[in-house]
């Protein structure tokens, strides 16, 4: 919360930029991106010669590129970008660039402290991870996806440790994938690996792995659980511990298992499990039957279910309440503690709890306009574009980042005036 406290929560309105002007000035404006505190707005813009650069609060970067994308402000309001010219990729940071160049770079992600950046990369024909400009020395035939440790010092990726001939199904079945941490692979391979994550103390990595056709489990630091399942989904660590929790399928039903042993009842489907901020409660998206989606907290499903989808749960900061995006009959809304808002929307974004958990707000779309919705009540103003609202530290004010008539504004609005 430290940086949120430092944001300007007093100035009612700041007019930051006229995007319509940008559209007149440049041949094209793409990928508008906003800083967390709303003070900056940037976009990839195309010059008349067809080359791309960045317009950031009206200031234009002198460098131009053939390809430019993935704008991302860090929490110091420096702007990262992925930029390509003369057959090389680089990482832009404000008006400078990392020295290191790449064959390709993707999955650009901010480091946990919100300042640095990490990405997958290919360099000299081999694949790995780059953290703040430092590329893994050990690289591989492929690297897919990445994770960074909570302390920001270690990076992991799903790597292909062996190259095999085209359609060599036998070599594949012996296992060619592993997790590499800082370039050092686990001492065993798997047939496939999907999501992977670090423990809160940054010392361990858990991953969902395929042992054989139809046989799956979770591996921690390369060691698979003793139990083998019909399917598994993404694992998480219990905060402050080395216990790993993952959805597992036994027979026709799913449960949550901790370190291989079931800890929940049986469901038709389970995924998206999450611990409460205090680390005491577990919630997950579940289906109690086919097309009956809901949230379960500590294995107890809400009684209301939705027929199309329920996205992953969000806990309030005080761990008391749970909210989730729900969809039924092609209409979206939010449900809090099992009770859906009455109003439904064409689209809705993640629920945002107030610091004490009493209020829930979200960005929603109705008839091509975007609104802030407060506890189910749709706000007065419809915007042309809007970003996720942020509660101020006292929970009484909300930061609204919006575009109205082509102009970008940063506003601080008391929650009861939305």
């Amino acid at each position, binding site marked *: 919360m430290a940086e949120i406290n430092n944001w300007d929560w007093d100035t009612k309105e700041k007019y930051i930029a006229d995007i319509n002007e940008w559209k007149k000035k440049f*041949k*094209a404006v*793409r990928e508008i991106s906003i800083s967390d505190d709303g003070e900056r707005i940037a976009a990839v813009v195309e010059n008349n010669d*067809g080359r791309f650069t960045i317009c950031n609060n009206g200031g234009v970067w002198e460098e131009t590129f*053939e*390809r430019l*994308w993935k704008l991302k402000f860090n929490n110091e309001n420096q702007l990262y970008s992925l930029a*390509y010219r003369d057959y090389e990729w680089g990482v832009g940071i404000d008006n400078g660039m990392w020295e290191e160049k790449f*064959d*390709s*770079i*993707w*999955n650009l992600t901010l480091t946990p402290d919100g300042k640095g950046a990490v990405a*997958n990369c*290919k360099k000299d024909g081999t*694949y790995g991870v780059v953290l703040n400009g430092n590329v893994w020395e050990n690289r591989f035939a*492929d690297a*897919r*996806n990445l994770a960074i440790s909570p302390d920001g010092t270690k990076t992991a990726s799903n790597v292909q440790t062996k190259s095999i001939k085209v*359609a060599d*199904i*036998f070599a*594949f*079945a012996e296992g060619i*994938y592993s997790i590499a941490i800082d370039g050092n692979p686990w001492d065993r391979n798997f*047939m*496939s690996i*999907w999501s992977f994550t670090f423990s809160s103390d940054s010392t361990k990595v858990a991953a969902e792995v*395929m042992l054989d*056709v*139809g046989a*799956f489990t979770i591996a921690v630091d390369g060691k698979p659980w003793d139990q083998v399942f*019909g*399917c598994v989904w993404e694992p998480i660590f219990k905060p402050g511990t080395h216990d790993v929790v993952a959805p597992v399928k036994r*027979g*026709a039903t799913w449960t949550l298992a901790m370190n291989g042993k079931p800890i929940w009842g049986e469901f038709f489907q389970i*995924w998206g499990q999450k611990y409460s901020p205090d680390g005491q409660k577990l919630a997950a998206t579940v289906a109690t039957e086919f097309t009956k989606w809901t949230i379960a907290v500590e294995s107890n499903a809400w009684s209301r279910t939705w027929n199309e*989808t329920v*996205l992953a749960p969000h806990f309030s900061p005080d761990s008391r309440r749970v909210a989730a995006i729900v969809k039924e009959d092609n209409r979206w809304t939010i449900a809090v503690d099992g009770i859906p808002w009455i109003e439904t929307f*064409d*689209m809705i*974004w993640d629920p945002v709890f107030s610091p004490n958990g009493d209020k829930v707000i979200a960005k929603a*779309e109705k008839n091509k306009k975007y609104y802030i919705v407060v506890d189910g009540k749709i706000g007065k103003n419809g915007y042309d574009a809007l970003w996720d609202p942020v509660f101020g530290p006292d929970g009484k004010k909300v930061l609204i980042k919006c575009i109205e008539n082509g102009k970008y504004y940063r506003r601080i609005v008391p929650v009861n005036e939305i």
Partner: protein
Amino acid sequence: MLKYERKEIADLGIDESVKRLTPEKITKTINNVLKGTGARLKAYLDTCIHCGLCAEACHYYLSHGKNPTYSPVAKVKLTLWEMVKNKGNVSPDFIAQCSRIAYTECNRCRRCSLYCPYGIDIWYLIALVRRICLLLKVVPQYEMDTNYSHAATLNMMWLKQDDWIDTVQWQEEEVRMEYKTARIPFDKEGAEVMYTPIAPEPKFKPQLLAATAKIMHAAGVDWTMPSFDGWDNSDISMHVADFETMSRVERKHFEAAFKLKVKRIVMCE
């Protein structure tokens, strides 16, 4: 007595894989799969009166000079019935025959069920055979390889994550030679439509992506494509009865749409 006679076709995925089977593994796998079938399998097997009316429905039967071994009922008789009758005790060579029939002599059109007076779902029965062959890893090589590609990369053509991104960005450059303001907008949150191709497009015919971009541009569609896994709408795992990989691929595809906040998924074929 039905005699299964075919021209020999070499396929590593079948010929080599059956050499790795043991009788125990075959029996255990068959019985595990059959255990999970409940009343449906029993009802179908008990109801069939072997009338052969389903034969005229099947294009494999018709296009092989009405050779009776290509009739739907015969394909079940030559595979699943034997497994059930022998309580799973069948030979590796028999599994090779099952794999050839289930994967290459029935393309799950389900026309036969419409011809059957009892509506017996022959495809369901053949799919059980595919499931058994899959778990025994006796699957035609290129089908298994494609399935493994889905399992490893979530796309059917072994595309690396940066291959996909680069191909789409390259095709955007191509289309912009003709239509200066056209785009292939990656990861545009809140777009109306998420468009997803099948992986053979970026792999073998990337110009199809440019063609799509032209259509979207001309039609004024507010569209996007995911730059991350979940961009491939194909699912060969479903065909080979690898239902675990199938559901993983589908989940990723839908989650890409949820992440991008689109209202519709539009797919090519």
